[in-house]
């Protein structure tokens, strides 16, 4: 066991997989010699050399296209898209090429690759560098979508993603990079499609992802200590595959559902899960399922404003309390 930052867990996760499989290669902007703009790839270039860890031009389409072509023909590339907002400039690969080729080719083409990207708000970077865009990917058939909330999951889920035979979009939360957590020694390999109950509880289910997990946990503690409300907090961890069993199981026990999303409100993963639960577990629900989200607006840059829009432990707790009391 060692304490590791989320940032260093990314480095260790990539290194673990590159060490194991010479077909794992890594490319992106400023990732090699400079170690990445978030310093989440420091040392990989020195360790694995210039053939396996490569700096690219500012050409996101070329980055993802090249990752796809390499994956189709036998490599297992990890591609970095620096900020997840930039997925918009290479979205054709995310929406039309990478996820559809296997299907269109009747199984002939395979795309085992990972796109790592810095997601989420909290850095006061404004509307084009702070978005949570996991729903841009969840809505596309053929992708897998993962978003770890802690250093251990970073390593385990990254390993699972690299070893997965399907394309995985791996969302690292920028605000989590400096956070720390205990990580076991040795190889860590997790499983995609498994949510984790991070706090058991009986009064309500709170689903969260990435940065929202610690916030939901804090809200749950407050609800317990201040109002005696006992919430179950589930770290969704992967949106595709989605662990509906764990989610439906939790709602079957608590009878109330709350989702906590950082992405803007419309058509987020919260809407998807609420719809699944409303359809399949309608009679389990004792009250309306409630989504707690960032309002449906572009993100403001100012610290004071940004702090208001993201779901806070206080807003989560308040929303749950009010819903359960009504």
């Amino acid at each position: 066991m060692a304490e590791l930052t989320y940032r260093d867990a990314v480095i260790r996760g990539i290194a673990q997989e590159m060490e194991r499989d010479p077909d794992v290669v890594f490319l992106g902007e400023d990732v090699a010699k400079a170690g990445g703009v978030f310093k989440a790839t420091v040392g990989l270039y020195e360790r694995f050399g210039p053939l396996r860890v490569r700096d690219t031009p500012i050409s996101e389409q070329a980055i993802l296209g090249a990752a796809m072509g390499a994956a189709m023909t036998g490599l297992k590339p990890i591609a970095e898209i620096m900020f997840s907002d930039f997925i918009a400039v290479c979205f054709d690969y995310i929406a039309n090429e990478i996820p559809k080729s296997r299907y269109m080719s009747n199984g002939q083409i395979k795309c085992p690759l990972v796109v790592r990207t810095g997601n989420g708000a909290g850095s006061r970077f404004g509307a084009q560098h702070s978005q949570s865009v996991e729903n841009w990917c969840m809505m596309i058939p053929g992708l897998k979508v993962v978003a770890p909330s802690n250093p251990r999951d970073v390593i385990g889920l990254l390993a699972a993603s690299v070893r997965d035979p399907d394309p995985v979009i791996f969302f690292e939360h920028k605000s989590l990079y400096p956070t720390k957590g205990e990580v076991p020694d040795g190889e860590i390999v997790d499983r995609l499609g498994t949510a984790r109950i991070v706090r058991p509880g009986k009064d309500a289910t709170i689903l969260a992802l990435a940065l929202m997990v610690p916030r939901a946990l804090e809200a749950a503690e407050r609800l317990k200590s201040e109002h005696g409300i006992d919430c179950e907090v589930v770290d969704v961890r992967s949106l595709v595959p989605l662990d509906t069993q764990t989610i439906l199981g939790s709602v079957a026990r608590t009878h109330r559902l709350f989702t906590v999303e950082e992405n803007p409100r419309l058509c987020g993963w919260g809407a998807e899960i609420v719809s699944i639960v409303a359809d399949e577990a309608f009679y389990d629900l004792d009250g309306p399922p409630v989504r707690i989200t960032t309002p449906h607006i572009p993100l403001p840059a100012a610290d004071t404003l940004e702090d208001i829009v993201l779901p806070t432990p206080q807003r989560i707790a308040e929303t749950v309390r009010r819903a359960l009391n009504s």
Partner: protein
Amino acid sequence: MATADARAPVQTGLNDDIGEKKRLEMYRTQVIIREAEQRAYDLFLQNLVKGTSHLSLGQEAVAAGFAAAMEPGDLSFCTYRGHAHTLARGVSVEKVLGELMQRDNGLMRGKGGSMHLTAVDHGVMGSYAIIGAHLPIACGAAWRAQYKGHTDVSVCFFGDGTTNIGAFHEALNFASVWKLPVVFVCENNLYMEYTPIADVTAVPHPAADRAASYGLERIIIDGNDADIVYRTAKAAYAKARAGKGPSLIECLTYRHSGHSRADPAKYRPEGELERWKLRDPIKIYRERLLQFGVSERIIAEIDAAARREVDVATEACKAAPPPPADILTADVYADGGWAWRN
């Protein structure tokens, strides 16, 4: 028309650098493409070809020449106008027509359709229907070759109109900087869908006039002469295999039919089609063979065999069932299924 005269035959005759066997192969390929595509058009008129289809009638020499110069293991990346390149790699007419007719015997059992022909076992790594998308993808395949020390070349075909989209630029720069073994082939047939390329492009030669932007040689060739195409391809592949990086080749050619099955091509200036038909690649090549001493009989046999193959394929496709419903949800993910949840 500008042609790269340096690439014109040095010796001429059946025993030159190309040789009789290759020439007959290229002739056969062009005829097969021609016959198969004309058949596709007839079948469309009978409402047996569904969806869209984009024919390469008139552009066969490009497909034949580039394919003939390939080694097994070399990879082709095509567009929606990819029937010709797929056939040129030896994929059967039946599988191609079957896909156009959306039958179970099609190359992808009807799941992909005419715009996405893929035959990995023949090196056809897919046909891409979003303009420009496959240029970066071909770079990736070439990167794999470079990384693994393989000697195969990735060859990427696209049209003149494709040179104005962002992915073209990103791929060309990327390939050049990484010195990737990829060959970019622009088939300049003068038109996008219906708009003349000259109306929307800042330079007369949409590909070649951009080569210098990527530190590459300016190459323009007569795309209707399979010999010229073949020799150009050979040289580019050799360069790629030698680790000397990518090439960008602009082939001047012309499509005889409309852009897609829906297009009567009324936008052509009068006489343009007729002028190009005088330079029909198959006509040119038939004359070349005769001139080099191949007998009329051998040529007629190739023509007849091609027609037979297309006839047989047509019948097989007509007899083939539609794809079964159970493939609908297959192969979304690697486990063979489509489950996004447990």
